[in-house]
């Protein structure tokens, strides 16, 4: 992956070139062996006007051409959806080696334009007319969770503190500064109880992953990581007492990978605002319902804790260039498993990791949730 950040002087092609060629060099594969490419991007149509054939345009500079190039748009889960499809192509036997790449440029001269583009990830007919705001949607979920289990504002703030601590140790992160609970709570109120320092920034960046057969992996230059399962769930008119989309999707992912929540040793989750981590700990089965506040108080999810979450800094600190996010989450787990995570390395290196990547909002629920379980 590229470093995430405000990269006004870099083009989408340039942001794709770097991670794709890093992956090619590191794995020592012959790029001619790539059978198919899936390119995740959510907002280039609105940001740059490149609505159609984005993938072909994005891969032009990297030299990936002639093979099938599939354009993938699933809001903030576009990158994960590209990963899901690349895995599908290989697992089905249709391809021996597939490329999943994701890029996004959200910075421009006009922040209003970026925010409007992001707001299109909801149902324009219903929520769109009422001024949908993602910070607001997350704030509502966080508030409901606080009310239900007595989660405190300090506990919310700690998730941001943790992710900034991790971002400070990650050279790819957009934010390298540490923050304190007091600073987080004193920062500008965006959508009560969400303050500015709890939210992820706009971001530019790219990430890429190569998925190949076992035979392909044998000759790789790096220790391969196995895809235990990759599952894509969609919104579902959830009634009052039905499980959330994340809970539903992760259940299937655990089943398909043959692992339980207790076995997870590292996770990257979709902390578009940091405090959502708390209810995600519960929905993903990392702790019992209502126990997430205690989990953050005990520092269990810091990189040196019992179950490190978002060692990359998460979306909050590492940044969130939508199309790249899911693949950057995968990259972090792979680096942790290979012992390549530098100052934020989990010791000993984890063997079972989970990625949760969400996107959009439809009918009061996240539109897409992708779960990938990776095994060393």
């Amino acid at each position, binding site marked *: 992956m590229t470093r995430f950040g405000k990269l006004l002087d870099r083009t989408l092609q340039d942001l794709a070139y770097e991670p794709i060629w890093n992956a090619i060099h590191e794995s020592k594969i012959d790029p001619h062996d790539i059978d198919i490419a899936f390119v995740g991007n959510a907002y280039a149509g609105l940001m740059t006007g490149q609505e159609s054939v984005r993938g072909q345009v994005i891969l032009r500079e990297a030299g990936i051409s002639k093979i099938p190039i599939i354009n993938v748009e699933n809001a903030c889960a576009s990158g994960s959806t590209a990963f899901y499809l690349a895995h599908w192509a290989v697992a089905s036997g249709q391809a021996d080696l597939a490329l999943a790449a994701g890029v996004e440029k959200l910075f421009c001269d006009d922040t209003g334009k970026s925010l409007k583009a992001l707001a299109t990830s909801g149902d324009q007919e219903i*929520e769109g007319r009422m001024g949908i705001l993602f910070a607001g949607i997350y704030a509502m979920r966080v508030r409901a969770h606080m009310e239900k289990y007595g989660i405190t504002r300090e506990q919310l703030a700690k998730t941001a503190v943790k992710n900034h601590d991790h971002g400070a140790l990650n050279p790819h992160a957009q934010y390298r500064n540490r923050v304190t609970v007091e600073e987080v709570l004193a920062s500008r109120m965006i959508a009560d109880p969400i303050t500015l320092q709890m939210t992820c920034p706009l971001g530019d960046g790219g990430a890429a992953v190569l998925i190949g057969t076992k035979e392909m992996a044998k000759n790789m230059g790096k220790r391969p990581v196995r895809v235990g399962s990759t599952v894509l769930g969609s919104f579902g008119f959830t009634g009052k007492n039905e499980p959330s989309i994340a809970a539903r999707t992760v259940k299937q992912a655990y089943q398909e990978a043959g692992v339980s929540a207790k076995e997870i040793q590292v996770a990257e989750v979709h902390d578009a605002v940091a405090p959502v981590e708390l209810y995600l700990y519960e929905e993903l089965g990392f702790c019992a319902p209502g126990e997430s506040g205690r989990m953050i108080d005990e520092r269990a999810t810091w990189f040196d804790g019992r179950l490190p979450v978002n060692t990359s800094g998460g979306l909050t600190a590492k940044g969130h260039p939508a199309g790249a996010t899911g693949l950057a989450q995968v990259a972090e787990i792979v680096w942790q498993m290979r012992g390549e995570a530098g100052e934020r390395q989990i010791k000993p290196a984890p063997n079972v990791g989970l990625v949760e990547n969400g996107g959009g909002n439809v009918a009061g629920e996240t539109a897409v949730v992708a779960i990938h379980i990776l095994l060393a």
Partner: protein
Amino acid sequence: MKEKARIPRVLVAKIGLDGHNRGAHVVAHGLREAGMEVIYTGIRQTPAAVAKTAVQESVDVIGISSMVGAHLSIMKKLIRELETLNASDIPVILGGIIPEEDYDQLRVLGVAAIFPPGAEVKEMVQFIEGVVKMNEWVSEVPGTLTGRSLEDIHLMGSRCDQCGQIYFPSRRNCPRCLDDRSIKPITLNDEGDLETFVVASVAPPGYPVPHAQGYIILSGEGPRIFSLLTDYGDPSNLKVGCKMGVKMVRLGRDKENRVVVGYRFRPLKGGVD
């Protein structure tokens, strides 16, 4: 959502000691022939009774026939009665022997149109159709509202008779049963509980700050409704679990000159008007 063209409802009445009902009969018959629904009260009605009937029957227009020169006093009384019933929006039209020198005074009273001897029924039909058109409305969000008239709009959803699930907005099939035969439109409850909410300090362009939104679980069987929140005064009046009521707001007119109606929710206690 495009509402079906509505059949205009007209109340034709005679007030006071005035038995000359031939004109009223001709008008009532003519309007019916034009496809309207006509309610005829007969002679010797009181202004209060006419106003009450108009409200109960949700008519679009009240037509009064007057032949004996009492038009000024009966119109004054009728319009006052309509005011007390909060029904001043129902236009009143007048036909019969009305001297031209009274026209200005009648208009000041609020009489919407006067049809003297010689006026043709088709002029009245045209006028009434225009009124109904003015009251035609359309939902801001398609499939969310239902109602006979602009004054009587409610949230609309769908119920699946097979699994019992209720949906909002209304739907053409049940996504659980994946069946389109057992889904029926229903009028939903006007009240519910606030499940969660946000009072955001930032808002997308064109929306006021603070920008308040919430999810309301309607009383009874639900469903869950995403809505902008209004009339809450101080944000501390909003609490998870507090009782909320729907409020219909008029958001201007569309290209076809129909009133655009949207739904909002407001706290039932502690809010402001």
